[in-house]
């Protein structure tokens, strides 16, 4: 193998598994350390710059960081990254004086944003400090998009939502709310310098089975129903409710039903429990609220009595695999299952819908009705029109929408300055030694052996009776401190300088997880096998040094490194050093 190029900004970034997995590349270990030090406001701002909505995401994020967390590979569970983000939001002080200043003199460019969800608001956040004039169009009378309409208040309280939306709305946005854009052509003709579409994936589906027409009144589209609850147009549901679907919307629907009068709420899933799309913790929360989830139940028909919906019939299936390994759901031949109900909520997927974009404007769409985009710049085939969030690449999550927003804002900024939008600025990185003394580092390397701390919940009897009462109480300061101490500080990198190494083996002998080997060089596959502990996780890189005096190389398996710094502490020549790698994605302000 060739020596590793640690100057490649992606090399050490990849070692910080959580940050690498985060669509917005939030510097996770950095803010966790700040929480350890009770510097909540600083921790909040690290988040705010990366992901814009720390308080919201600290409650609602899909947490791609957590399955990636290295802690999950050396023990059972990852660090509770998401809920620590909430801690930063819960305990911070006033941040208003830390927000970017908005120039009074504008730069003369005028941008239209359509849909006031996370993607558009991120674009606004990035462009307003640069002097852009922003007009934000929203069909509802309030901003937030899916964060307001699809996430129930018992998971995301109104004041948390409004606080973070207002940081951006108060930067001087021209708000045009309660105003649904009906024609893209009209908007384009208004000569905006760029238009950003962040309208989400607004189209829910209803399951049209026999009996549908007669029962229609009581069959609801999950996301529409949730929006009606959020805007207080709906405040009750029948006593017996069936929720169809196994995603997060289904979990929100069933838990909301339970709070609006649903006494017997059942979630019915076509496939197996383990194939459910909902996040495990949301499934867990639904189960904790005594909501049964039945799997391998394929809905067959709506059952009516006197023209009124009284139940649904399901066929029981089991999982089989065909010869090609494709998963099939095969009827078991058992009696059909009948579940009585008064209402059915369909949470069986969302789709994009752009009936308001005329097809002759030069904005092209693919066969799934998604705009054809450059996935790096989010520019459509019409050079002035950009997309982001669910409306760009189909339904995903908030943090992905934020990431799109940052990238689109950068593109718009480059575009408005007549520069090539493909030429993106480099990420902002730094690599700084953390050495303070012979055995002292400016980070806490004595990590905790504790297992993951659970977030305390409010009393179930109370939360089930109050749709606005937040279920999760969040970590208190002590719990938060204990949880932060589980973080392995994967951004504190082990940097090896081969010229200094005397091959004494001190690092090899001390390493708790057998990461380091001195051996003859070989190709990667061979080398992975030749290590002290074979490196079987191919997603994790091997750090290879140049040739050493004994003609061996140092090869370090990054997979299970605890970043404890003991290699560097034992190294007599400082060939190993612990250096903090900070990585920030380039944003419009950096262009």
């Amino acid at each position: 193998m060739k020596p590793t190029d640690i100057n490649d900004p992606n090399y050490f970034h990849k070692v910080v598994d959580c940050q690498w997995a985060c669509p917005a590349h939030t510097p996770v270990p950095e803010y966790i350390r700040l929480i350890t030090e009770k510097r909540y406001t600083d921790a909040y701002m690290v988040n705010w710059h990366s992901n814009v909505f720390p308080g919201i995401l600290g409650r609602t994020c899909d947490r791609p960081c957590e399955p990636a967390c290295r802690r999950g590979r050396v023990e059972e569970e990852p660090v509770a990254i998401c809920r620590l983000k909430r801690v930063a939001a819960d305990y911070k002080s006033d941040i208003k004086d830390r927000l970017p200043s908005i120039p009074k003199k504008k730069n003369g460019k005028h941008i239209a944003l359509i849909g006031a969800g996370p993607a558009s608001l991120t674009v606004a956040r990035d462009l307003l400090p640069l002097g852009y004039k922003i007009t934000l169009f929203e069909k509802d009378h309030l901003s937030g998009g899916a964060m307001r309409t699809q996430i129930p208040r018992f998971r995301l309280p109104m004041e948390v939502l409004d606080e973070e939306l207002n940081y951006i709305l108060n930067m001087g946005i021209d708000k045009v709310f309660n105003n649904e854009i009906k024609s893209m052509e009209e908007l384009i003709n208004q000569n905006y310098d760029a238009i950003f579409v962040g309208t989400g994936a607004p189209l829910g589906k209803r399951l049209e089975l026999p009996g549908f027409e007669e029962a229609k009144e009581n069959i609801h589209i999950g996301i529409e129903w949730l929006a009606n609850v959020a805007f207080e147009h709906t405040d009750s549901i029948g006593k017996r409710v069936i929720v169809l679907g196994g995603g997060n919307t289904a979990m929100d629907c069933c838990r909301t039903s339970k709070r609006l009068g649903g006494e017997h709420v059942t979630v019915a899933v076509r496939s197996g429990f383990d194939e459910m799309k909902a996040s495990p913790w949301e499934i867990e929360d639904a189960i904790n609220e005594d909501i049964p989830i039945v799997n391998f139940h394929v809905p067959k028909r709506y059952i009516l009595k006197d023209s009124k919906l009284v139940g649904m019939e399901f066929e029981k299936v089991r999982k089989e695999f065909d010869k090609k390994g494709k998963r099939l759901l095969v009827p078991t031949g058992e009696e059909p299952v009948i579940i009585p109900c008064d209402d059915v909520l369909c949470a069986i997927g969302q789709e994009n819908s752009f009936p308001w974009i005329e097809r002759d404007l030069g904005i092209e769409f693919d066969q799934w009705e998604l705009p054809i985009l450059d996935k790096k710049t989010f520019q459509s085939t019409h050079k002035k029109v950009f997309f982001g969030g669910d409306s760009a690449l189909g339904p995903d999550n908030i943090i992905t929408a934020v990431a799109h927003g940052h990238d689109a804002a950068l593109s718009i900024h480059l575009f408005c300055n007549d520069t090539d939008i493909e030429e993106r600025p480099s990420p902002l990185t730094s690599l700084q030694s953390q050495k303070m003394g012979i055995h002292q580092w400016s980070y806490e390397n004595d990590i905790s052996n504790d297992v993951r701390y659970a977030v305390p919940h409010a009393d179930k009897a109370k939360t089930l009776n109050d749709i606005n009462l937040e279920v999760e109480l969040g970590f208190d300061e002590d719990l938060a401190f204990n949880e932060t101490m589980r973080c392995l500080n994967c951004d504190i990198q082990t940097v090896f300088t081969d010229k200094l190494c005397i091959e004494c083996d001190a690092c090899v002998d001390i390493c708790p997880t057998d990461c380091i080997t001195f051996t003859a060089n070989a190709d990667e596959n061979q080398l992975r096998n030749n290590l002290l502990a074979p490196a079987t996780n191919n997603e994790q890189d091997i750090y290879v040094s140049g040739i050493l005096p004994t003609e061996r190389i140092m090869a370090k398996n990054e997979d299970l490194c605890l970043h404890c710094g003991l290699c560097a502490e034992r190294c007599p020549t400082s060939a190993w050093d612990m250096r903090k790698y900070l990585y920030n994605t380039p944003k419009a302000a950096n262009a």
Partner: protein
Amino acid sequence: MSYIKKPKFQHPDLQVNDIGLTRRDYEGTLTTLCGGCGHDSISAAIIQAAADMSLAPHKVAKISGIGCSSKIPSYFLSKSHGFNSVHGRMPSVATGANIANKDLHYVGVSGDGDSASIGLGQFCHIVRRRINMLYIVANNGTYGLTKGQLSATADLGSKTKSGEESLYDNIDMATLAIELGATFVARSFSGDKQQLIPLIQAGLTHKGFAFIDVVSPCVTFNNTEQSSHGYKNTWETYVSLSKVDFVPMKEEITTSYDPGHGKTITLHDGSVIHLHKTGLNYDPSDKNNALKHINQHKDNGEIATGLLYINQSASDLHEIQATVDKPFNLLNNHDLCPGNEVLAGINQQFR
């Protein structure tokens, strides 16, 4: 030393040995020696050797004298018996322990000061008495604990960090051991675990006095360009007389070796040492040949390493003394005072 404990998290695929332990279970406390000390690599090699052999920790006794070297029993096999004795007197304690309980594996760890200076007399006598043990000298050619004076194993002309030059020829612990009757003598280098680990395993299995002289650089006081015991010089000058493999008895039954590729030595318990040819065609069973080779390499400015000498026919102390099969510490009153009838029997022999 370090302010933190070694994290308990370990590699999830770490091998579990025959008695259900991983290598981490054979560790001791975190070392307090200087970072880069060769002695830590010796500890690591002992840990690996013991884990690979599935040694039951309670069947091992670690004994040491005084010095940096003699601190290391703290850093391995924390579940084993240990005795940190007086300077240069490890052999006496080891002898006593071995006489009291011959059923344990004895690992003596000493240094060049402890064994070649203050304890040289003790060393000579334990070799001569052939105690069944593994005696390791962590040899760095300097008195590290007293801040870097030349020791008796420093080679002629070798210089310490402060510039002090050795004016005398060195005491070669390996040739001394061979001459005094040790039945297993090896030399190795702390930096070369591939060689050191099988030697430790073979030494622990060998019945009789096994001695390994390990060049173990003092990174703080004796690691200069002019020091013959530093890392750089040792890497450059050490010559492996044969590549050593140790195969424990249980595995040997299923392992096949091409006899054309080297020499096979079967130890008393059925375990095997494989010596792969290196081109030197070295025969470790010939005492005079061993001494000749060691001296020849020394004259060439090289350090001869590997298994230097082995003799499996000589008896150990218990055999020479014809002691009873049962370890002394298990003998009870009846064993020691078998009663009038037995006494009468003995007396009868002399009538």
